[in-house]
């Protein structure tokens, strides 16, 4: 008896009425993977820079993400501290060990008790960067890596994300383009596309936020590079 892999591939080929694809067909399939052409991209995101950022904010808010727009990185610590205070949350926050976040002047808010690392089961709030914001659906694109442990996105009740306006793209296809263009190349272990806080409709289809992941998702958006 041949192995299951050979049997499955064999039955697929019998069903398709051929052996492995002919050389010219296979070359076409190779090309499709190498060039990964875009399919129809909705026109929703065909917008000039500032309007695209506005679309991102509008779509994010439509799924119960909150957004605070700040003029520069220096304004981030106060924004985070005020957000935590507004929701009566403790000032302890576990932050991704991300060099880009270290550049923010956290010392300006000494009451924020920041630890760096991955999240544990009882951390109340986390703070991370993001790889991109996708305006089409108000989605955050978060890549796992040493500077962004995935647990920070899911375990704490509150997830705060620092995003720069220059990181906002229109459709998913533009986000894939940036993903492939990263310096270190290759796929990270996980790409998390996050659109609003955790939710469920499993009891009578009534939507509840905070099923297993964060109850609150908050974006501090730095208006760093208004595009024309």
């Amino acid at each position: 008896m041949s192995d299951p892999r050979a049997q499955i591939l064999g039955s697929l080929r019998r069903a398709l009425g051929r052996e492995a694809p002919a050389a010219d067909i296979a070359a076409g399939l190779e090309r499709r993977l190498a060039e990964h052409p875009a399919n129809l991209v909705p026109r929703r995101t065909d917008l000039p820079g500032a309007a695209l950022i506005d679309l991102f904010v509008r779509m994010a808010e439509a799924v119960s993400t909150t957004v605070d727009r700040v003029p520069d990185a220096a304004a981030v610590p106060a924004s985070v501290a005020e957000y935590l205070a507004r929701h009566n949350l403790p000032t302890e926050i576990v932050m991704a060990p991300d060099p880009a976040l270290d550049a923010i002047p956290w010392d300006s808010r000494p009451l924020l008790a920041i630890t760096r690392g991955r999240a544990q089961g009882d951390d109340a709030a986390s703070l991370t960067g993001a790889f991109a914001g996708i305006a089409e659906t108000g989605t955050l694109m978060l890549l796992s890596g040493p500077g962004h442990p995935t647990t920070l996105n899911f375990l704490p009740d509150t997830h705060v994300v620092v995003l720069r306006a220059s990181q906002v793209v229109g459709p998913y296809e533009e986000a894939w383009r940036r993903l492939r263009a990263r310096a270190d190349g290759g796929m990270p272990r996980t790409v998390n596309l996050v659109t609003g806080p955790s939710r469920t409709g499993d009891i009578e289809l009534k939507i509840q936020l905070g099923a297993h992941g964060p109850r609150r998702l908050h974006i501090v958006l730095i208006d760093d590079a208004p595009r024309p």
Partner: protein
Amino acid sequence: MQATSRAFKENAGAALNDPRLQRALGNLRTGFQERRRAAVAGLPEFERLRDEGRAIKDHTLANLDWYLERWEANVRAAGGHVHWCRTAAEARDAILGICRAVGARSMTKGKSMIAEEIALNGFLAEHGIEPVETDLGEYIIQLRDEPPSHIIAPAIHLTRDDVEATFREHHDELPAGRPLAEPRQLTDEARAMLRRKFLAADVGLTGANFLVAETGSSIIVTNEGNGDLTQTLPKVHIVLASLEKVVPTLEDAATILRLLARSATGQEFSSYTTISTGPRRPEDLDGPEQYHVVLLDNGRSAMLGTEFQDMLRCIRCSACLNHCPVYSAVGGHAYGWVYPGPMGAVLTPGLIGVEEAGHLPNASTFCGRCESVCPMKIPLPKMMRHWRERQVERGLAPAVARWGIGLWAFLAARPALYGLAARLGAGLLGRLGRRRGRFGSLPLAGGWTDVRDLPAPEGGTFRDRWAARRRQGGR
């Protein structure tokens, strides 16, 4: 899971007479149909995206062997493992083998219909591994020892009261007098109970909405975040996927993702779409040390190249269930196996045999709403008809139906005889029913008259009246 599809008629009868179930099913219209309509209206390109989604899947299916091999090579390049499994038994053994290799005692699970298909939970429990469902709906029905009744809302057959009673019974370590009347309180209680399980699990198992050939990735789409905790916290992540889930590129996945959430829950995009590629990298601070994909055939390759191939485009969105008058009336359990509604009526005979599931393709009004809302434009009614044809070919249709159709076919091919028979039949029934104008019961017609009267014919046959009208110069 043991199929009870043979008992569809009895199951359906019981469901129609179950007032609690009927109340729960009443949520379908506002919960799914109206939300989908609004989401589709919000994307002008939706119809064209359906055509593109169908073309992507057709292209992939036509080259499925090539794309699977390429996907597998990329999984391995990223440090993952692929286990090819022909049958449910092979898939269960592969999963058990992975669990045993790491000495696993508990497994958290994201929602996976294929795990239902291979009856994984009972098998794991028999072998000393505790399976923990983490999707809220799946968790509720696991406590109740019930199968899911819907492919994305597994506990839709239950009301809030049912869930409260279930939690009070099973969470007996919590104070008896705690408030638990609101969905919010129920959700919070499940969150707290499951948080411990997430942190303690040795293995996490998820399904897959897509496998991406280009990158060797698997993609899951969830709203609760349970799938992400399931695959991030334990040492081992197992993806259980059937082989038709593969798409060529991330661009192709994006196109179908635009269709999926809108068709399913009416969301623009689900809360969490997660693309996973291999195990944790050496410098990562979290994530699983092993990444396995258990790739299941279980009858799907036998559908390729047949009149049922189009069913392999299905992305399990549930739009066909949510818009089906039969599903809305009887719910998912009546279908008697894993996949209910129109997609189940086509898929189930393909996976467990038309002998077992022959009732399902007959449980349709052929109204066509399923096909009209299917994001992948799967011709569901046509395929149900193909199954009916196979039933007749194999002599599986009930004798009365076969004789009846045979007699009708004989007459229909002989117009003069047909006209005579129709005239005799209509005349006889008309005379018998003249007094009441309707029949409360008729021999061989119990399927009709058990639930409603049959009006008695009045006057001549249609053909006679048509001919008379033509003679009078009418139209």
